């Protein structure tokens, strides 16, 4: 029998900054819980609902600490310019799970 796709993957953001990421079967309730800690935040659904197993796998992958190592050579621009370009692209607007417009994270599926 096919497993139920009943689990949401989400980020909780304050402005454009992701402060938390996780999985839940009830986004509404989870948003209320997070709002107690970050009253100005909002929840953003990531991708579609999926099975609990797949969602847990996603969570494991995403919570690993950043292990990206810097390249050993510089490019034709200053390092800060690459950072700004990446950050700018990560802050494009989009619509969240409730239809509200927010700034977009490149993390969204």
């Amino acid at each position, binding site marked *: 029998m096919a497993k139920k796709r009943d689990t949401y993957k989400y980020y909780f953001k304050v402005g454009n900054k992701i402060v938390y*990421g996780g999985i839940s079967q009830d986004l509404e309730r989870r948003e209320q819980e997070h709002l107690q800690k970050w009253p100005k935040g909002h929840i953003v659904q990531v991708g579609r609902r999926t099975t609990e197993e797949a969602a847990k796998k996603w969570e494991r*992958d995403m919570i*690993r600490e*950043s292990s990206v190592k810097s*390249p*050993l050579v510089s*490019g*034709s*621009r200053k390092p800060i310019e690459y950072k700004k370009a990446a*950050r700018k692209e990560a802050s494009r607007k989009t619509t969240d799970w409730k239809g509200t417009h927010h700034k977009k994270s490149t993390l969204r599926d």
Partner: protein
Amino acid sequence: MANKYNDSVFINCPFDEEYKPMLWAITFAIFDCGFVPRCTLEEDDASQIRIEKIYSIIESCRFGMHDISRTELDPKHRLPRFNMPLELGLFLSAKKFGKGKHSKKSCLIFDKKAYRYQRFISDIAGQDINAHNNSPKNAIKVVRDWLSGKSSRNMPSDGIFIWNRYRRFQKALPGMCRTLDLKHENLIYKDYINLVYEWLKESTWKHISS
């Protein structure tokens, strides 16, 4: 310094336009797995002899990824390109005759089809030889699995995860190029790796418990 050696992956592959999607995807996967890609495209010191550049990079890399898929006859000159097999030979020699850390070198060999190598370079049988079928998606999966098997690091659980991130990166790349006033189609390797690095840093976050 020792860490840089253990983090570094030498990419020995064709540098033509046709191969670019593969090179871009492999480079992204190496970064996303927590390693640093190295290849001769990063050096622009014209005073350094090319083979010296290759020696220098091989010396500084524990891992080597070699694509021998282009060992085929050039339609114009009817001669094969031997650069990739030559650099593979240099890497294997460094492992065989090098002392200390060099004896722990590890390499992955790519070809476009499984077992094709047996017809032109059968002596490499017994190495890690994988077919990518000219598919960036396959290449990402193979690179991830190989690096995962050769190190005990925490890395993405599978190649699909990296592939999905790579597709998001591809969508973001033209915008980043515009911001930097760079032409996406003519992006050079050094700019590309710096963009991958910054984008991945923006896209990886630490878990904060509530």
